[in-house]
Every structure is written in structure tokens, then in C-alpha cells.
């Protein structure tokens, strides 16, 4: 198949006029169709997206019944519009509208590619209370155990991330240890066969909470 060389001007005037009409006609039709579909499905797409996001957030913050998107503006945690650009975290509230925790997105280099996670942080308990992998390309059957293995996910029911005395970082860094060797509440029990992936999760959470934890407590 050969691409026509469009840069050569047509010798025949009628021909180039026909060409122009054809291209403009097709272009207009295509543009119209795309905009129609885009507008027609807009509501439904936004609804589904919000639903998926809500589901993920309620999973990582136990007891949460409603949520609001928030951003740090001048160091202050402020409620923002859903469509706002930039780093957003989500505050979860229970039935009586009390704050029960924050859902925070974080990402970092895994074994195969970037891993994206969402975790729940309870500022009262100063602990991580839930965890979910949003996106990963870790090896199926080995690295992807970080998404499913119950003994690993159990680490995040209550993972200690207490701030240190001057509230500028964590008292104890979150680290991943070998499977079965967890002895402190701030350690993550790793997975045999997914050593690098589970260690990557520890690093991702550690660097994210080191930065965000103090910011939240300062507000």
C-alpha cells in the first residue's frame, strides 16, 4: 500500500477542488460524529468513573460512607473540585459526617514497571488502615501477589506510621521484612517469591507518608 503524495499540487484545477471538498466533507462529518458521541456518553462516563473511585476509596478507609476530594493549597488542606488538576487526596467521612481517614494515591518503581497504589491513612491512630493496588504490571503468579495474597494485605489493616517528636517525619520508617519476620507494627511482612515487588510497596508507602503525614498533622 502506498501513501499518496499530498504535497504535489494537482495540475488539474477541478481535481484539486474535488479533493478539497472530499477532505473537508469527511473531516466535518468525523468531527461531528466524535463530538456527538463524546457529549452523549459524558454523563455516564463521569458517573462510572466516580463510582469506581468511590468504591476504591471506601475499600481503603473502613467505615467511610462519603468522601471529598482535597488538595494542599498553601500548605492548607482545602476541598477542591472533582476535576481539579494536581495531586489530589480524598477525605473519607462516616455516617455522622466525622472524618475517619484519608485515601492517598502513591506510585513508584516496581519490578517490571511503575506500581500505582491507593492507601488509607487514619490521622487519629496515625496508622495505615487500608491498601489497594491500582495499577501494576508485575509478573503474573509472582509479583502480582501484592494485589491478592491475604497475608500480605493483612499488613495494611493497621500499619503503624506514628510521627516523630518534631512532627517532620516518621518515628519509624516503614520497611518490608522477609516473610514471617515481622516483629514491629511498622514493618511489612513481605512475600517469598515477590521480594522485590513487596519491598517496592514498602518504599512507595514510606516515601509518600513521610511527605504527606506531617503535612496533614500540621493543618
Amino acid at each position, binding site marked *: 500500500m502506498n501513501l499518496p503524495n499530498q504535497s504535489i499540487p*494537482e495540475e488539474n484545477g477541478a481535481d484539486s477542488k474535488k479533493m478539497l471538498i472530499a477532505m473537508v466533507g*469527511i473531516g466535518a462529518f468525523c468531527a461531528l460524529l466524535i463530538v456527538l*458521541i463524546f457529549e452523549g456518553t459524558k454523563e455516564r*462516563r463521569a458517573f462510572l468513573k466516580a463510582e*469506581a473511585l468511590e468504591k476504591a476509596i471506601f475499600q481503603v478507609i473502613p467505615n467511610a460512607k462519603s468522601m471529598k476530594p482535597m488538595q494542599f493549597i498553601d500548605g492548607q488542606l482545602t476541598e477542591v473540585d472533582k476535576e481539579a488538576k494536581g495531586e489530589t487526596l480524598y477525605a473519607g467521612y462516616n455516617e455522622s459526617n466525622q472524618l475517619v481517614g484519608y485515601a492517598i494515591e502513591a506510585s513508584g518503581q516496581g519490578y517490571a514497571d511503575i506500581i500505582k497504589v491507593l492507601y488509607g491513612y487514619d490521622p487519629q491512630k496515625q496508622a495505615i488502615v487500608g491498601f489497594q493496588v491500582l495499577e501494576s504490571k508485575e*509478573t503474573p503468579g509472582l509479583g502480582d501477589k501484592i494485589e491478592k495474597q491475604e497475608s500480605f494485605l493483612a499488613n495494611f489493616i493497621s500499619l503503624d506510621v506514628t510521627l516523630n517528636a518534631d512532627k517532620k517525619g516518621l518515628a519509624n520508617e516503614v520497611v518490608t521484612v522477609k516473610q514471617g519476620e515481622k516483629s514491629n507494627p511498622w514493618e511489612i511482612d513481605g512475600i517469598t517469591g515477590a521480594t522485590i515487588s513487596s519491598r517496592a510497596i514498602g518504599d512507595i508507602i514510606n516515601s509518600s507518608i513521610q511527605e504527606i503525614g506531617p503535612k496533614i498533622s500540621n493543618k
Partner: protein
Amino acid sequence: MNVAVKENKKKREQKSTDEFIKGLWKENPVFVQVLGMCPVLAVTNTSMNALAMGLATSFVLLMSNILISLLRNFIPKQVRISSYILIIATFVTVIDYVIQAISVELHKSLGAFISLIVVNCLILSRAEAFASKNTLKHSVMDALGMGIGFTFALLCLGVVREVLGSGTVFQFQILPENFQSWIIMILPAGGFFTLAFWLLFFNYLKERKAKS
């Protein structure tokens, strides 16, 4: 319409079913023509993905074949490929939004491969080789046949890979729980191997037919 066309009308009536059948088997886009390999290998790790991808591709193929066949006397020869690509890209954008409106999860698992339907050589080759030269009816038949043939091929791979790789079909457990799944089947390498074995199987059938 000239006289010869009218005379051939009866012949053509029969032909239109042929156009449909040929895509299913004799000129199957994947197993015989080896076209559109990227999605065939990339999204067939589960049967569900394979089916969704097959249907999405068939939709784009059908719509672009219809439009191109209708406009075949209107599009000047010099800009035909550009017009085809424009039309195909439009329908791909449409199906992309439709899938997003059906299920976020499905859209996520197919990812960029929906957009990559644009460069699926199957669609452009049908537009250039068939729809631009044939009537609407035949083009529709051709698109349906090729689309179903393509979906069938994707399912052939998807089902084998999902059964051996996770012991399920459309997420229903069919192999016993204690089956040690072959992880390699879900990995990229498994895609290459599965397609290679299907091609071997068809070659074997052909060989045996030729001998008898």
C-alpha cells in the same frame, strides 16, 4: 450501472454469502492472512478481553467499510488513504468512549490497545482492497465475515490462554482448584507460543488434506 453488472446480478447474490464465509475460514484474517497481530497477542490473556477486543474491532471494521463503500465514488484517488485513516480513527474514538461508558474496568484492562485499533492492518487492508471497490451489500458481508473470523481467532487464543494460565473460562473455574496453573500462558511469551501452536495445527490440517 452498466449492462454487464445487471447480468451479473444473480451471480452476485450468491457471491455475497461467499464474501461472508471466506472471512470465517478460507481467508481468516489471523490464521491465514496473519494480519493485525498486535491485539491478537496482547489482549488475549483472558477470554473476556479477547471477546471485547474482537467485537470492538469488528464494529470499527463494519462502520468504516460501510462509510468507505458509500463514499467510494466520491473520494479522489490521491487522498484515499488519508481519508480512510481519518474515518477509521473517528470510529475508533467512538468505540473508545462507548467502552468507557459500558465498563471502566474493561476499558482499563484493554488500555491503549483500543486506540491501537487505528493501526490494525486488517481494517486498512479491507478498506483498500475491498470496500473501496465493492457495493455496500458486499462490503457489509465482507466486514461481518472478517470481523467474526477475527473475533473467533482472538477467542481461540484467549480461551486456551485463560484455561491453562488461570484454570478459568470467562472467570468461571473449570479446572479443579488444585490445578497448578501455567503462568507462562498469561505472560507475553505464552501469547507467541499459543499462536504458534494454532498455526501449526492449521498447517497440519492443510497438510493432511493435501495428502488425501
